[in-house]
């Protein structure tokens, strides 16, 4: 029972990270109908930025704040400069461009920071927290907390501010949005910025667990894909819930099903993605998309 609870909590911690990254994928998907294959690498790059800021003597939270700011501006700039020219191109073109971004971020990170695995600090205390006989990792609890705060902030932003409302409107109906004075192009760019910001937080939360290296996010990204697929690419809340679900499933399956262990974890995500796409392509919480023909 203790092991079960511990696994659930640590599943929730990684699940929150999958969910955050899934959320950033969904935000971009909803606004621009694009799946950003570079989302994970952008998060990885941001995490390296935080790491090198800390190496230059900045405190954790200062580096954190600077990193999310830079990630936001970077995401915005990528949309404006790189994605905008191919906005109306066929899907294949857009996929190829985001893959181009993926390999560029990956290789530039390797170039600058090398492929050596680095430890990344956790901002939370190291003493384990005991509740009865169950021991919880403080970083797990902290990561869950940070994820939840981030999600609540985002929810409030989209739900209650007029900018958030305008972003939702622009994603839904660009033509009408222009008619009420919304600058649609900038809303899409803001979406990319926010997605990059969320990704950066996810990167910094997961790096203490899986360590820092240029390929660190590829596994996380496939889990984020699985989460977004499970929750539904059209449902931000669903993607987050999907993340928590995938995190817990992954941990429990790894603990209790010996065949899977740790070395087939990615395959579990693959199977999950294909199964969901076949059985319920819109995901658990998504809307079925009516396609114009």
């Amino acid at each position: 029972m203790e092991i079960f609870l511990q696994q659930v909590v640590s599943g929730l911690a990684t699940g929150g990270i999958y969910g955050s990254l899934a959320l950033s994928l969904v935000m971009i998907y909803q606004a621009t109908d694009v799946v950003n294959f570079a989302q994970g690498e952008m998060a990885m790059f941001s995490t390296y930025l935080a790491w090198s800021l800390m190496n230059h003597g900045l405190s954790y939270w200062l580096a954190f704040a600077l990193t999310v700011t830079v990630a936001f501006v970077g995401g915005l700039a990528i949309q404006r400069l790189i994605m905008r020219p191919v906005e109306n191109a066929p899907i294949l073109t857009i996929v190829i461009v985001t893959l181009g971004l993926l390999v560029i971020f990956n290789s530039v990170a390797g170039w600058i920071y090398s492929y050596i695995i680095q430890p990344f600090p956790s901002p939370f205390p190291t003493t384990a927290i005991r509740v009865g006989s169950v021991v919880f990792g403080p970083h797990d609890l902290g990561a869950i907390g940070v994820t939840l705060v981030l999600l609540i902030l985002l929810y409030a932003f989209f739900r209650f501010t007029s900018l958030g409302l305008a972003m939702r409107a622009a994603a839904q109906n660009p033509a009408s949005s222009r008619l009420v004075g919304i600058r649609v192009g900038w809303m899409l760019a803001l979406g990319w910025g926010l997605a990059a910001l969320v990704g950066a937080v996810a990167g910094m939360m997961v790096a203490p667990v899986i360590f820092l290296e240029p390929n660190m996010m590829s596994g996380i990204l496939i889990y984020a894909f699985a989460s977004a697929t499970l929750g539904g690419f059209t449902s931000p809340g669903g993607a987050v819930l999907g993340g928590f679900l995938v995190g817990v499933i992954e941990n429990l399956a790894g603990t209790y099903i010996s065949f899977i262990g740790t070395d087939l974890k990615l395959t579990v995500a693959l199977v999950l993605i294909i199964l969901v796409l076949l059985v319920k392509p819109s995901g658990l919480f998504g809307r079925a998309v009516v396609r114009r023909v």
Partner: protein
Amino acid sequence: MPPLLEALGLEARYGWTKVLHDLRFSVEEGGITTILGANGAGKTTTLRAVCGMVKTAGEIRFDGRRIDGKATEDLVRLGIAHAPEGRGTFVGLTVEENLRLGAYARKTKASIADDLDRIYQYFPVLLERRRQLGGTLSGGEQQMLAIARALILRPRLLLLDEPSLGLAPLVVREIFRIVRTINKEQGVSVLLVEQNASMALRLADHAYLLETGRVVMSGPSTEVGKDDSVRRAYLGY
């Protein structure tokens, strides 16, 4: 005093096809102007040309200043509100969110709540439905929503694209009544594009008749309404 909106030699094209030829029309400050015409005459395109949604040549002046070539988003900020063809409802947002978006480009945000109240007085059905998603409204309700969303901008000029399209006669009469009230009470000038000529002529003070992208007749609506050919072709008596 110059008219509020004035088009001179206005042309518009979709791709290689020219759909408006040398249009000249105007809307007086505080007036209601209607553009009549059959399907495909270029009525909707005229409105789209005014708010920068199609490629145009020629001059468009608003309040004496050139506005042709400006982006749609910027025209909204000058006080031109457009209730578009097909109504342009944000189907996934609530009615109230739809209305709040109408005020997105407003300079004075302070009195939005008051304006919302007044708009709900014009359109009580929207108050009833304000927590519902826009997509769940009926056609008539969506048309009201489109007009309401345009009004909350506190526009100087309201562009209305076929508000009667697909609606029951009773609903149409209601909508026209509200447009007249708004025009009288708030001094909003209106450019109305309609196929329903008899209702439009009764509402408007000035009318233009459009055929295949050209103005073929214009004048005070009472005179246009008396013209024999107009009566035969558009009024049906």
